[in-house]
């Protein structure tokens, strides 16, 4: 009898140890996948935050720029920079033939003309002098410099010619190639040229979208939650509404995209590809998330607080607004932020309402066309150029950083403002 009991006890302990082991291995697996994922993203993406520059001497020859020796600001604005830009590149190899000159030109981005222009606009006294100017290297040379380019491929399978590589290597040897922090990744809009592509448009697009989403979804959801939880009679109709709100939360996001396309664009003729439409579409998705969070946190307010207020002669409205809602706010807000974080990462509905269009301007308002961060990842991931590979990962890093900050904020709100009641 006693022995039996001992066996049983040991069996129970073994079961517990086994169960712990299962739990620990599950956590280990999750952490492993997460680490691999993060490592992959970082190792591919970190180089996108560096940008390669060629340092090229430019002779600001007034004659070639078709201006006089003491030009006004307007003259400088309208001057012709293409010829001196071309000449500066061609001068890298004195013996270059026409084809080689063309190849030299393609070693830098097509912005080179503008970069030279900015240089002289900042310092008009350069007229007639020669100065070394930083020019953005083409995306392929950028990759060569970062060591990501397969130089040993046969020449006809490469986009960089042997001649370009030779000149580039000479420049590197002379210390005329430099890698600097890639500010333009954050300040430029999208571009077909990887070396000039940035996330400014999609970042602003995302910000505008979630602002529109917040401004629509938050008030509607909170009012709906307060009404349903504090005022609505509990009957079949409100049960029906509750079930449907929960169903709405489970609807695939692409369906909301179709709704945006069919209603907002087709019927109301709102401007296509804009954060306004994107935000409205996302707000439909976020609405049930916030309603559910707000209702849960209203439910969590102890009834004794409501009774206390009612017994003091507060009206139902006063009880709700003075006591219940303020107490439920931390939960509601953190639910809202989590809903917004979901909306921020949403891609499918935005593709349907046209936010996938190529936008090379930075939006100044929700009414301007824009992309959004996840859509930008999708667009770049589809592009063939080698330079976009690291940009995809870099954009994912920005998006993840954004999401982590938002979730952290939700946690802080929850911990800081959670009131303890007896």
């Amino acid at each position, binding site marked *: 009898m006693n022995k039996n009991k001992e066996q049983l006890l040991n069996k129970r302990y073994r079961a517990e140890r086994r169960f712990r082991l299962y739990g620990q291995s599950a956590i280990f697996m999750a952490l492993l996948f997460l680490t691999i994922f993060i490592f992959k993203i970082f190792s591919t993406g970190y180089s996108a935050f560096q940008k390669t520059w060629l340092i090229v001497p430019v002779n600001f020859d007034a004659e070639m720029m078709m201006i006089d020796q003491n030009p006004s600001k307007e003259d400088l604005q309208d001057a012709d920079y293409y010829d001196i830009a071309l000449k500066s590149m061609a001068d890298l190899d004195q013996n270059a033939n026409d084809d080689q000159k063309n190849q030299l030109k393609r070693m830098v981005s097509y912005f080179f003309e503008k970069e030279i222009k900015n240089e002289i606009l900042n310092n008009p006294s350069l007229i007639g002098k020669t100065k070394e100017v930083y020019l953005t290297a083409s995306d392929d040379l950028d990759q060569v410099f970062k060591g990501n380019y397969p130089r040993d491929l046969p020449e006809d399978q490469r986009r960089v010619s042997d001649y370009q590589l030779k000149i580039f290597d000479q420049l590197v040897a002379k210390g005329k190639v430099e890698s600097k922090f890639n500010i333009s990744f954050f300040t430029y809009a999208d571009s077909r040229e990887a070396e000039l592509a940035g996330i400014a448009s999609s970042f602003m697009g995302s910000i505008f979208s979630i602002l529109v989403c917040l401004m629509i979804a938050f008030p509607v959801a909170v009012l709906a939650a307060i009404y349903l939880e504090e005022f609505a009679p509990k009957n079949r109709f409100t049960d029906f509404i509750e079930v449907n709100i929960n169903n709405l939360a489970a609807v695939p996001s692409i369906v909301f995209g179709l709704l945006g396309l069919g209603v907002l664009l087709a019927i109301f003729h709102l401007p296509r590809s804009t954060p306004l439409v994107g935000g409205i579409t996302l707000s439909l998705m976020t609405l049930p998330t916030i309603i559910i969070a707000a209702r849960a946190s209203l439910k969590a307010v102890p009834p004794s607080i409501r009774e206390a207020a009612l017994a003091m002669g507060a009206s139902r409205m006063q009880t709700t607004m003075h006591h219940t809602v303020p107490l439920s706010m931390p939960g509601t807000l953190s639910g809202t932020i989590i809903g917004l974080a979901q909306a921020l990462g949403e891609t499918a509905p935005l593709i349907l309402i046209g936010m996938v269009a190529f936008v090379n301007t930075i939006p100044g308002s929700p009414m301007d066309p824009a992309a959004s961060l996840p859509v930008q990842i999708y667009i770049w991931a589809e592009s063939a150029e080698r330079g976009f590979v690291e940009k995809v990962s870099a954009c994912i890093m920005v998006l993840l950083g954004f999401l982590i900050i938002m979730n952290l904020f939700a946690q802080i709100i929850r911990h800081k403002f959670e009131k303890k*009641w007896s």
Partner: protein
Amino acid sequence: MIKIKAKDVDVFYGKKQALYNIGLDIEENQVTALIGPSGCGKSTFLRCLNRMNDVIDICRVKGEILINDFNINDKSCDVVRLREKIGMVFQKPNPFPKTVYENISYGPTIHGMAQSKQEMDEIVETSLKKAALWEEVKDRLHEPGTGLSGGQQQRLCIARAISVRPEVILMDEPCSALDPIATAQIEELIDELKKEHTIIIVTHSMAQAARVSQNTGFFHLGHLIEHGSTDKIFKNPDNTKTQDYITGRFG
């Protein structure tokens, strides 16, 4: 003088009847205790007096409850006004998760009883003094009320109830969550408060009912079995059920 007159009060929770034909007179400026075993309907009756049962969707109240000869179950009765006149203290201390000061000032604020900050300060001070809490909290008026001890919290709730100078105070087992010392303090307080307020207290403790009340009503299974002066109920009850309950034979 009779303050509250209940006539033929029936209460239903959905289809289940919780109170049958309650008729009870409550004397002004006295303490009336309602006693009886758990689930007998004494708290339900108490909550009829300030219409707190309105909060429960399935609850229906029938019959007349006259307070100052006005039927509070009448459609013309405004519950907000009613609850200003009839304060309530609950079983578990339930201060608002705000400061001590805000707990007291809430009622006077929503009923517009103070014109200035100074008047409000006075109301807060007198309410806390009446609740015998002033000395303990005068230096921590702006700290959270939930940080006080259980007994202090309950006295804070009493102070909150009297801040709007109600005519009647309903107490629903106010000491059941407190230790004997805090209980004694509250009982003393009740004795003091009855000079200005009519008090109705629901209690599980027979000793407490005997100590604090002048009148007692005994409830059993939704019926008011017997009511009268506390002396009579405890020493010479008419009904054998009352006798059995008082002597501890059931309940």
